[in-house]
């Protein structure tokens, strides 16, 4: 086993107080990325046919 994550890093990753603030930060950041909108990448002449009204 190679210890790739230092004890200090691990402390930060698992400390509930630090992680509580990280939780708030991540929630907002993820919301910005995901709910920040989406759209197309090209112009498409695509139409929905309404068959029956």
């Amino acid at each position, binding site marked *: *086993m190679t210890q790739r994550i230092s004890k200090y890093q691990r402390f*930060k990753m698992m400390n509930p107080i630090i*992680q*509580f603030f990280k939780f708030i930060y991540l929630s907002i950041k993820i919301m910005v*990325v995901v709910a920040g909108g989406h759209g197309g*990448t090209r112009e498409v002449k*695509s139409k929905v046919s*309404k068959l029956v*009204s």
Partner: protein
Amino acid sequence: MSKIVILGAGISGHVAASHLRRKLSKEHEVLVVSPNSNYQWIPSNIWVGVGRMKSKEILFPLAPLYKKKGIRYKQAKAITFHPEGDKTEQKPYILAEYVVGEKKGQQEKVTYDYLINATGPKLNFEATEGLTPGLNKTYSVCTYTHADHAWEGLNDLIQQMKQGKKVKILIGTGHAKATCQGAAFEYILNVEQELRRHKVRDMAEVTWISNEYQLGDFGMDGMLLSYGSMTMKSSEMVGMIFEDRDIKWILGVGVDKIENGIAYYENLDGEHKKEKYDFAMLIPSFSGHGFKAFDKNNEDVTSKLFKGFMIVDADYTSKPYEDWSVKDWPETYQNPSYQNIFAPGIAFAPPHAISKPRKSKNGTAIFPAPPRTGMPSGITAKLVADNIIDSIKSGKDTAHHKGSLGNMGAACIASAGFGITQGSGVSITTYPIVPDYEKYPKTQGRQLGKTFGEIGLAGHWLKLALHYAFIYKAKMRPFWWLIPE
């Protein structure tokens, strides 16, 4: 009035049905046709598979909810598509067969004005010889019943380890072109944590086996991401986690045969090798359901609707990897031949892979198929519903709601272990999902900052919060629509 039929009640189908019902008046009919009686929140199957959640915590029955909300529901499976009707039925319809109750086995023509195909993938276990959940010491976490079996198998193994047995655990992909590496990634980290919790970690050799060329590919060609103040590749991040947890890895391989405790595979060098194991969780390849379609004269028009999965507004022109463009990906998930048919979520045929295609020296294609997880499934289902709603309400043809995977962000909150104080999660967001090399040429097609990774306890809390939030949303509790997809 209009009648909208939705095939499937998974994330995509259920999201579409929910939004259609909320936004359309009762004169319009919303009908869900699904062979499944329960809604399941698939991302939490991981925790069922390590015994930290019961399957009843991740599912609920559909029929009472749909009855309460005014959504019609038939527990039936689609058999054939008839987008022009036939000689006796003027309206387009799907032929469905009931799977339970008094009508079990009976077939019925279900007519529609708009059809949303949200049937998701077929779990194609048959594509790999011997890969059957619960047999040959292999398991799956693709459904809650599979996850229950996986936990039974793992728990049994843990008891043997406590008696002093040394074991090998193999987790990853079970086919050369499988996808959903993220689920296997979560499962291997959760299994590793459970072994430590049960104090048997030193009794197990845990190995990741995958068709990815590099760690952290996830079927998305990997990513360059912000990690704290650094910028690192997803391969480096996953490598760091695996090394830290003493997880070995075998990459660039296609598992092609399973025998009791032995996985046979071919690697990119064309070598045929095998790996022994005592417990394996291998994700199968996904495929379309093999539906057939017929026109009004009963002529086969399957090629107009299906290319494995359903054909939508993507550019399916065959071209080399270098010429792939983000513009190839669909925006409205609308079938070009029958424009009242849509296929959001996993039901649409992707124009090509996202990861670079690779072949072994024997010519075997070994690379991940493109992943389409819960978040884009929900987003694409909602935009399809919105386009149909706009068309019905305005009386005009419209498709102005668009959502290409090349212009959409996604979050992957990968559980790395369960526990309120001892849990962990790897939170990764990607923007866009399909890399746009024209817009972001220097950062591997993605926007740094919006593409980032974090590891820690907060990730576990986040995944747990999403579990409760999305089940609340799926149950259509008060103000459910305020929770984004």
